[in-house]
């Protein structure tokens, strides 16, 4: 069999995970409730589907879906839609959290969200059937299903984990670290696998693989419910009330189901008009910041007001950080595709696989960093939250310095050695 580098990377990633995950579980098995490990795997698979799809999304749009419009326009459109997609992914959890609190309970919200996400991934895969390939609307529908589904799944699985620990339980922080390890493991595996399958075999198979990942996540979660592993937690707050007619003859449950579907066309609208979405979000942000300032100056408790001002200031810097950090999935991936020399031993590494560097570095550095914060904390020298933001921003900027230097001084015929791209991801990971 011929040696293939991209596949080798995938196998190395898989081996790494197969060693790493059992170690985590074995060392924590007796300390934590079993639900943690169930939720770990459910979330791992859900993130596998989410990040696997995201890894290939920009490239698919730029190289396949919009290619008829010309390279330049296809890339610009891909970056715009990717931005609108991720923006809305972060918007819907607010709604999904509310629905779980008031109507569904965590279990039902997670199942409903997971089902929508799986449906979305398979819709993207379906667009691979030749007759459907040209229909952009099907592609948008797939994306919007994932956006709305993620809104129900993501916030609620995290909150659900919190239910298994008392408020002041000292194991809680450790539990969430383990849980986030699941997130990054899923993301690492996904970017390697879906990236490989999509770029080397078939794009739609890549999307389908993401959908299969989501189905695994649902099976993990569902079988835990059947085994009664969640005890009495995460049930609907008032199941009977949720089934009774509530609005225009519809029960609360049905209003949520119907409402979720009604959001799909709205999401599709904003996917297509990403600049409009940017304006809407900017205005909304300004309004909220204005309200914070107003609240702060009229607050009776002066300390409370000042603290809220801190949130308002950090809101802005937080946004600056993410706006540049999130170049990874869009413009940096296209940069890797076009202007990075990805040849190793006569073979080219798929551009999408570079996105696995971020979760890899997080997996490696997160324990180091939390150990460092803990030690500094004990020595009463842990940096304050604003100071941590300063550090994060500086590291991000350093990552870009590396790329710019690589492009200015080390490029050959417009190709930057991939070493520079890999290095740029290191500070981003921490």
């Amino acid at each position, binding site marked *: 069999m011929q040696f293939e580098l991209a596949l080798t990377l995938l196998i190395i990633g898989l081996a790494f995970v197969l060693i790493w995950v059992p170690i985590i579980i074995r060392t924590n098995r007796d300390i934590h409730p079993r639900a943690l490990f169930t939720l770990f795997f459910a979330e791992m698979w859900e993130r596998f589907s989410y990040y696997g799809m995201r890894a290939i999304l920009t490239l698919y749009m730029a190289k396949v879906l919009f290619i008829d419009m*010309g*390279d*330049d326009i296809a*890339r*610009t459109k891909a970056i*715009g*839609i*990717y*931005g*609108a997609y991720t*923006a*809305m992914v*972060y*918007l819907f959890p*607010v709604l999904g959290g509310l629905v779980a609190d008031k109507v569904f309970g965590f279990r039902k919200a997670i199942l409903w969200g997971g089902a929508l996400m799986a449906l979305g991934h398979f819709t993207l895969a379906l667009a691979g059937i030749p007759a459907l390939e040209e229909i952009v609307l099907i592609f948008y529908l797939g994306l919007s299903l994932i956006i709305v589904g993620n809104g129900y799944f993501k916030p609620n699985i995290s909150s659900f984990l919190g239910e298994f620990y008392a408020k002041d339980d000292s194991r809680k922080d450790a539990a969430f670290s383990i849980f986030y390890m699941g997130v990054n493991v899923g993301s690492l595996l996904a970017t390697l696998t879906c990236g490989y399958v999509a770029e080397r075999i078939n794009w739609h198979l890549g999307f389908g693989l993401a959908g299969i990942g989501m189905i695994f996540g649902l099976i993990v979660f569902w079988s835990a419910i059947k085994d009664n592993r969640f005890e009495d937690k995460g049930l609907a707050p008032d199941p009977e009330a949720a089934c009774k007619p509530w609005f225009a003859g519809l029960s609360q449950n049905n209003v949520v189901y119907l409402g979720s579907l009604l959001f799909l066309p709205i999401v599709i609208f904003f996917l297509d008009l*990403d*600049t409009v*979405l940017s304006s809407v*979000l900017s205005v909304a*942000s300004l309004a909220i910041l204005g309200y*914070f300032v107003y609240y702060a100056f009229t607050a009776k*408790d002066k300390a409370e007001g*000042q*603290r*809220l*001002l*801190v*949130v308002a*200031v*950090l809101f802005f810097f*937080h*946004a*600056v*950080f*993410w*706006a*540049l*950090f*999130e*170049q990874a999935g*869009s*413009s940096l991936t*296209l*940069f890797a595709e076009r*202007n990075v020399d990805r040849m190793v031993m006569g073979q080219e590494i798929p551009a999408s696989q570079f996105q696995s560097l971020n979760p890899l570095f997080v997996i490696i550095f997160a324990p180091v960093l939390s150990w460092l914060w803990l030690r500094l904390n004990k020595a009463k020298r842990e940096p*304050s*939250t*604003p*100071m941590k933001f*300063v550090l994060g*921003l500086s590291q991000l*900027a350093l990552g*870009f*310095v590396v*790329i*710019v230097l690589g*492009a200015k001084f080390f490029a050959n*015929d*417009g190709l*930057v050695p991939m070493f520079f791209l890999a290095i740029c991801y290191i500070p981003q990971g921490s």
Partner: protein
Amino acid sequence: MVTKLSPGKIVGFVMGAWFLSISLANSMAGQIGKLTESSSSGGGELSMMESLNQYSSTYLTWGVMVVFGAAFLLLLMVPTLRKWMNGIH
């Protein structure tokens, strides 16, 4: 962090707003990312060299200068912010 800093009455609202800041950021990431594509192209395809320059100048302006600028600005504000946090770390 956000929960500790927000007034008890509106903590849910502030958390929602925090999500909005990531959402806004991602949407802006799209607008910034578009700058890496030629704005002046008359439909012509960029050469490898031109596209490399476009990437590095965009990343220099936004990734390096704006982000370092923001870091520096925030650094200047740290003492004030710490005072405003009133004992919360």
